[in-house]
């Protein structure tokens, strides 16, 4: 616990600027009916070497946030800044952005099956990154690619390097994707649902691999997922997103033990418990509101069991519920702080 709090304390408090600092990020998608916000004012700080998980349902804006860091989102960054090592990625020229992509920020995606080019060998794809960013010679790139394949746990890399994507299994493809993402030793790795498309046993292997690579290279990891189990095992801090906003953030331990936002509580309650197989899974009633028709107040209001007067009219800001732990819910405003912990019921 102390270590986690210290991890949180690294952010700004000790003067060292965070590696990645997203402030008031707002991303809009142009539609026929006008701009629709997918991300509505997200703040996120990531220290060097830290693992932060961004959790939420489909459509909560977590992937859009991650893609916006890489400036790969179709949406327009309407407001806010994305500072990476002191530079604002939101306004960086495209050419400089390209040297950051793959060079200083690596990214892996949800579906490794379709993330590799089918007409080139995996070796050529890894070498391409090395030649591009590190200006290696073809021979040096090949040696390095072999080492990378070995490092991500691919057996017989010397023969695998000449194979095509369709000859590899899903887990192996994700390993290859990882090899490409870490080829230039990025400071930050964005993992956009890296295990969603994989078997459970492979998921654990990939998470273990991610963890060991992170320790070896000292890179920060921004993990996008809806799998709370992965979060619990891998991340230090967690941010819960709902309808384009962060509704709760804190250390994994705090958020899991003392979930303070009704949405987080509902998410945790919806997890299947292997010890109680007969127990009915608790779905959250209702649906995520469409980003084009958001209510004026709290976006979770209509599905919330605890909604009261201010919820429908006013949007709650993040209220402090503990050290480095906050939730955007009026229940946590001021004197009612004592309510925190009701999630354990």
């Amino acid at each position, binding site marked *: 616990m102390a270590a986690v709090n210290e991890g949180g304390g690294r952010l700004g408090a000790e003067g060292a600027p965070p590696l990645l600092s997203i402030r008031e990020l707002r991303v809009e998608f142009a539609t026929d009916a006008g701009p629709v916000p997918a991300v509505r004012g997200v703040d996120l700080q990531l220290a060097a070497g830290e693992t932060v998980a961004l959790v939420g349902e489909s459509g909560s804006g977590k992937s859009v946030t991650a893609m916006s860091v*890489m400036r*790969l989102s179709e949406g327009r960054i309407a407001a806010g800044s994305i500072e990476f090592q002191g530079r604002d990625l939101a306004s960086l020229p495209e050419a400089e952005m*390209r*040297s*950051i*992509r*793959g*060079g200083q920020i*690596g*990214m892996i*995606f949800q*579906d490794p099956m*379709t*993330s*590799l*080019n*089918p*007409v*080139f060998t995996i070796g050529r794809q890894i070498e*391409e*990154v090395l030649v*591009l*960013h590190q200006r290696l010679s073809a021979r040096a790139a090949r040696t390095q690619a072999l080492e990378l394949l070995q490092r991500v746990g691919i057996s*017989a890399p010397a*023969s*695998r390097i*000449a*194979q*095509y994507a*369709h*000859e590899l299994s899903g887990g192996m493809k994700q390993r290859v*994707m990882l090899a*490409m*993402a870490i080829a230039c030793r990025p400071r930050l790795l964005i993992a956009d649902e890296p295990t969603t498309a994989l078997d459970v046993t492979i998921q654990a292997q990939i998470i273990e691999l991610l963890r060991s690579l992170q320790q070896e290279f000292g890179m920060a990891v921004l993990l996008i997922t809806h799998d709370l189990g992965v979060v619990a095992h891998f991340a230090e801090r967690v941010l819960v997103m709902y309808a384009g906003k962060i509704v709760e953030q804190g250390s994994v331990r705090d958020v899991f033990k003392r979930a303070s936002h009704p949405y987080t509580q509902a998410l945790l309650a919806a997890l299947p418990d292997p010890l109680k197989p007969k127990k009915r899974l608790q779905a959250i009633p209702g649906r995520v509101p469409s980003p084009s028709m958001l209510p004026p107040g709290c976006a979770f209001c209509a599905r919330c069991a605890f909604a009261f007067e201010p919820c429908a009219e006013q949007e709650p800001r993040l209220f402090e519920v503990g050290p480095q732990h906050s939730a955007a819910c009026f229940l946590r405003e001021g004197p009612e702080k004592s309510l925190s912990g009701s999630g354990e019921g």
Partner: protein
Amino acid sequence: MSIPVEPVTPELAPGAARAAHADAEALGMAETPARALWRAFRRDRLAMLGLYVLLASLVVALLGKLLTGFWVVFDPAAVRLPDKLLPPLSAASSAIGKDLLPPFHYYPFGTDELGRNVFARMLQGAFVSLSVGIVAVGISLVIGVTVGGLAGFYGQRKLGPISVDSLLMRFTDVVLCFPTFFLILTVVALLPPSIYNIMIVIGITSWMSTARFVRAECLALREQDFITAATALGLPPWRILFRHMIPNAMAPVLVSATINVAHAILTESALSFLGFGVRPPYATWGNILADGRSYIFDAPWLFLIPGAAILVVVLAFNLVGEGLRDALNPKLRKRVG
């Protein structure tokens, strides 16, 4: 202790060897896309027949270029008036000077109205026909792939009031509306009649279908995860377009290119037939056919031989194109699955 170990070792060895073999096989099966395509193509008998004919005619064309260029008895322009209009397989008459005697003193395909060796002329024409077809399609591929790739990749980008896509594709539509053959006739009539002009003119009037295929493929590929992944690795746009998208878009292009070669050969023959093609002393299948037209009843071989050659080569290209189409289709399905 050592006694039970010994019998175990030889038992283990074949097992391990088998495992190693299976592993090597699994790894050694590394099938390049080209090899997979060849395996599928080989099953199509007609396409294979077409391929053999094509390879044979390529050899003949190259051989023809060498023989007619460097061996005087094969000179397709050599006039032997005493031997005019001889049917195929007739022997040279004794009136022919020694330096003009055809090889083995025979005319395999007969002679024309000036006593020129039709076999030699056909050889020379083979090179013209095939090179015109291949070079013209090469030019059309370069234009078509570039236009289609740019339209598909940069389509959304605006140039003033219209998008790149609309600009390029409407231009393609306009070119498609040209009556191509008459355009070629006009251009060729204005330009000096050379084989290079014909290649270029056919090339720049036949790229439209390629452009459309490539654009359609690129539009679909843009949304593919591996293109997003390539962008996330910091690859510059031109590299993504030309190294990652276009190789993936080549399947339908390859098919249409093969069939376009047949078209180009036909167009060249038609131009030469009409007298707008290659300058007359130089033989092409089209102008041999045109010359034979006047002797259609007296010397039918003069139009039958070049006509059959055009038919066979065009048919062979079409068969190979169809075979490629069939071979590429199931592979595309497999690649997605």
